[in-house]
């Protein structure tokens, strides 16, 4: 437990060092593409740190000076499958981003979609020693949360205090300085498979980079696509990626639930490849150019050249109608959305005051998806694109980049997590020198 605390704190310190240097990279390791942005911070950090979120949600403090995307290899379901391949893919993305930025980057914030995220709601409560709540009390109440059994080999990725309550008053965002007797907290904790994260970190270390932060892309897509009132009133962000579809639910500007479905665009491509008997590259091209979710009468007449280079004229001149293509794609899309529906139901999404659903990610670009999603998920569905940030190239403004843009927002203004507070003295190992120092500090 304290090991995790120390590791996450080290990452925060690394992020601080990167901010001081002014350049940091964010890297989204996805299953179909690896995207990298190089951000330059121009001293806006101080303002953002002092007065909550700075102007434009803290994103006015940075500027994208380098962006690169490369085809992902060696990554399956958002997890590292072949380490060498992944390392080379990361290297490719980073090198071209550095080349565009013309600046060396040493610190990177990594987002990943896989590693089987699991979400826990924690609650803790303490009696206050003094009447006013101090930062120490916040740390103590966070430490007082009862830790569930998260399973063997799993690690905590996010642990964010979502809600504070002081005596009978609930819904506080910042209890510090307020007066009361009993402080309780609701915390949202996200755990991931430790081995998968470890592999990914190892790939990044082999590229001579320091990790300045880790985030789940389900979370970062949410912060880049959901607008402010959606985050406040309750909304779900469905990030439909290559092999993993991430689900995150936001409420009162905090993520309260996250999960992932291990299905995505690659499965649709695979279905097309099998159904039309074309290579994967052709299937991907056909899906991108002619794909759809809802067939109309016109689609029966629109024929698609399947092509091929087998030398057999009959085989190479095959065509398929667009209706056929949609007929292959639609069941898979429905399956993905049904899975998402199950996750949302499990999370109790229908209890939220507003049930906005935002679709983003590469798969959300399929025409007619919003209509289909509305039938499965509920009425208020919209397609989301990431927030526009300064200096982002036009090519990286599509919904496929919402995760990496969210990562840059996360880099600019991370939410307070459990490890951002000093660990209370009781949690230190016994006979620790630091504990003695702490005791002196508190009592003198």
């Amino acid at each position, binding site marked *: 437990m304290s090991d995790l605390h120390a590791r996450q704190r080290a990452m925060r310190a690394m992020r601080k060092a990167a901010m001081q240097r002014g350049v940091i990279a964010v890297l989204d390791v996805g299953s179909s593409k690896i995207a990298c942005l190089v951000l330059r911070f121009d001293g806006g950090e101080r303002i953002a740190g002092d007065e909550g979120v700075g102007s434009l949600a803290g994103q006015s403090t940075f500027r994208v000076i380098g962006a690169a995307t*490369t085809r992902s290899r060696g990554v399956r379901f958002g997890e590292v499958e*072949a380490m060498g391949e992944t390392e*080379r*893919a990361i*290297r*490719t993305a*980073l*090198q071209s981003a*550095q*080349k565009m930025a*013309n*600046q*060396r980057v040493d610190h990177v914030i990594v987002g990943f979609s896989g590693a089987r995220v699991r979400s826990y709601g924690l609650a803790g409560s303490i009696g206050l020693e003094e009447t006013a709540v101090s930062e120490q009390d916040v740390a103590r109440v966070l430490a007082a949360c009862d830790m569930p059994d998260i399973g063997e080999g799993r690690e905590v990725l996010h642990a964010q205090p979502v809600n504070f309550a002081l005596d009978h008053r609930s819904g506080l965002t910042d209890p510090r300085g307020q007066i009361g007797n009993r402080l309780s907290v609701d915390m949202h904790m996200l755990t991931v498979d430790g081995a998968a994260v470890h592999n990914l970190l190892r790939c990044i270390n082999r*590229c*001579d980079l320091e990790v300045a932060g880790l985030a789940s892309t389900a979370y970062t897509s949410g912060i880049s696509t959901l607008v402010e009132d959606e985050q406040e009133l309750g909304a779900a962000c469905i990030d439909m990626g290559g092999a993993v579809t991430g689900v995150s639910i936001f409420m009162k500007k905090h993520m309260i639930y996250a999960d992932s479905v291990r299905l995505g665009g690659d499965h649709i491509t695979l279905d097309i490849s099998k159904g039309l008997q074309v290579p994967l590259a052709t299937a991907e091209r056909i899906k991108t150019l002619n794909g759809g979710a809802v067939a109309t009468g016109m689609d029966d007449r629109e024929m698609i050249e399947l092509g091929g280079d087998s030398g057999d004229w009959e085989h190479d001149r095959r065509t398929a109608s667009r209706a056929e293509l949609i007929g292959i794609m639609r069941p898979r899309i429905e399956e993905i959305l049904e899975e998402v529906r199950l996750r949302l139901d499990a999370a109790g999404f229908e209890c939220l005051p507003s049930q906005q659903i935002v679709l983003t990610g590469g798969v959300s670009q399929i025409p007619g998806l919003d209509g289909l999603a509305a039938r499965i998920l509920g009425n208020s569905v919209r397609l989301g694109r990431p927030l526009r940030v300064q200096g982002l190239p036009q090519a990286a403004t599509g919904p496929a980049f919402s995760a990496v843009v969210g990562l840059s927002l996360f880099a600019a203004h991370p939410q307070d997590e459990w490890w951002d507070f000093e660990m209370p003295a009781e949690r230190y190992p016994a006979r620790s020198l630091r504990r003695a120092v702490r005791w002196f500090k508190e009592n003198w």
Partner: protein
Amino acid sequence: MRPLRAGRRATPARRRARRDPAPSRLAYRLHRLWLTPLFRGIIRIGLPVALILGGGIAYLSDDARREDLQAWLAEQRRAFEERPEFMVKLMAIDGASAELAEDIREAVPLDFPVSQFDLDLEHIRRTIAGLDAVADVDVSLRGQGVLQVSVRQRVPVVVWRGRQEIALLDETGHRVAAVIARAMRPDLPLIAGDGADRAVPEALRLMAAAEPLKARLRGLVRMGERRWDLVLDRDQRILLPERDPVAALERVLALDTATDLLARDVTTIDMRIPARPTLRLGPGAREAFRMINLFELEEGAVGQ
């Protein structure tokens, strides 16, 4: 599973790997190194500077090469300086008499044509100004390779008979030239005695005051480097005081006008104490004066 190492060239995996745009680890590291500002500065500025400096030092470390280089530089410099537009072909002297011009050419021995870079105008000016007869000189380079020397000469006003030589002096007492004999400049008044050259302005005032005696005036003699004697013909002397000699001389002239003093047999008129002018009589006059005194004595004795 994929083969762990790339197999033969023909395998599809190998072909795909070659199409792969991923940079090798070395290329990636070199690129990052290149993007490091310090390294970049060293390569882009430090390395060329070090190469040029090192090459230059290595080239110059050989004595023979260094001498060659110096000789070549000197030759280039000479060739530039000796271009016709920089050559001075003659010296023009204005405002000097023929003898002075001759003296100047002797004092400044230039071997024309000479490059104007080799001329030290200030040195030439000082040399010429050092000549006695030159009051002021201006040396400049004129176009068409002419060295212009403009001279203002000293004008001699008195002849000074000194211990060593007979010299001409200007109104400040500065020596202008030597003459062999006084007779060469009869138009100028004569002064003599040690230190006379340092009191030329006073001598000139005395000369002006002695204008009525011009026909009889022989000259002025400086006595003891402090006062003047006015010497007339017939060995008459007027001894002037140290202070305000012109007034004393004017008193003598007034006496002369009133009593025709100087025409009488008087050898010396001593005005050194202005309140008590003293006369020294000549031998004839002295005798006559004694006779008169004796006569008066006898008459007095008779009268008593």
